[in-house]
């Protein structure tokens, strides 16, 4: 029979054992839960990856299909008789305009050639002016005369 004076020690020992048991149980539970959660996360990640790959493949297939459809539609439209008629009508109109207004065409061509010639002459002039400055600096240094007015 345990004396009454040691009843407190019994209670303390019981409390310590209960703490140890509960700590062990808690650790075991946490370990099991961690392993399960990691496994579950890996499974979810794998499923997501599969879904993403399938989505990308479907999207690419859809894009190619749409491109083929657009190309076919444009090809059909370009070879349709209606478009041929419209283009021929516009072409005739433009050729008639060029034939009736040669001055306008000539002015456009002349304007373009003038701008090309003007640009070339501008380059020649600016290059010659730069050369003059270089020669002038050189002669000023050689002769010691002052800057030209």
């Amino acid at each position, binding site marked *: 029979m345990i004396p009454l004076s040691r009843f407190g020690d019994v209670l303390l020992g019981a409390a310590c054992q209960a703490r140890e048991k509960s700590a062990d149980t808690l650790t075991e539970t946490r370990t099991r839960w961690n392993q399960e959660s990691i496994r579950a996360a890996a499974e979810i990640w794998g499923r997501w990856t599969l879904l993403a790959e399938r989505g990308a493949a479907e999207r690419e297939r859809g894009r190619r299909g749409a491109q083929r459809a657009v190309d076919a539609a444009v090809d059909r439209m370009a070879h349709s008789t209606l478009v041929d008629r419209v283009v021929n009508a516009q072409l005739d109109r433009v050729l008639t305009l060029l034939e009736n207004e040669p001055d306008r065409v000539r002015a456009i061509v002349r304007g373009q050639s003038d701008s090309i010639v003007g640009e070339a002459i501008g380059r020649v002039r600016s290059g010659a*002016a730069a050369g003059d400055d270089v020669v*002038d600096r050189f002669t000023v240094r050689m002769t010691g005369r002052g800057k*030209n007015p």
Partner: protein
Amino acid sequence: MSGYAGLVSRGLAYLIDAVAVALLAGAGVTVLGMVASVVGPEARDLARLVVSGYVLFLPALLAVYCALFWSLAGRTPGMAVVGVRVVRTDGRPVGWLGASIRGVLLAFFPIGALWLLIDRRRQAVHDKVVGTYVVRVG
């Protein structure tokens, strides 16, 4: 007017004009030779004389070319390309006499143009004699 033209501008203009005159003279001599081969010995002698006097004839042609353009337009085609013009020291266009003297001096004494290197207003010898400047236009 935006300053006096220097050696490079004037040299480039002179080169363009000299090439134009040489082409003109070459074409003229070629035509003369063809005519001489058809016409006869007298024309052939004349053509030989012209070709032998090419050294004298070409500068004379350049002088006439320059004098003509300077007196009529104030600049030769080469000067028009480079964007320079000949004016008298008082700012007026150069006359017939001045243009002729200037042309002869430039054609037969081109070394005198180097005087512009040491002149404050970039005047060459032919400019000093006639009283002209070569100025940049625009």
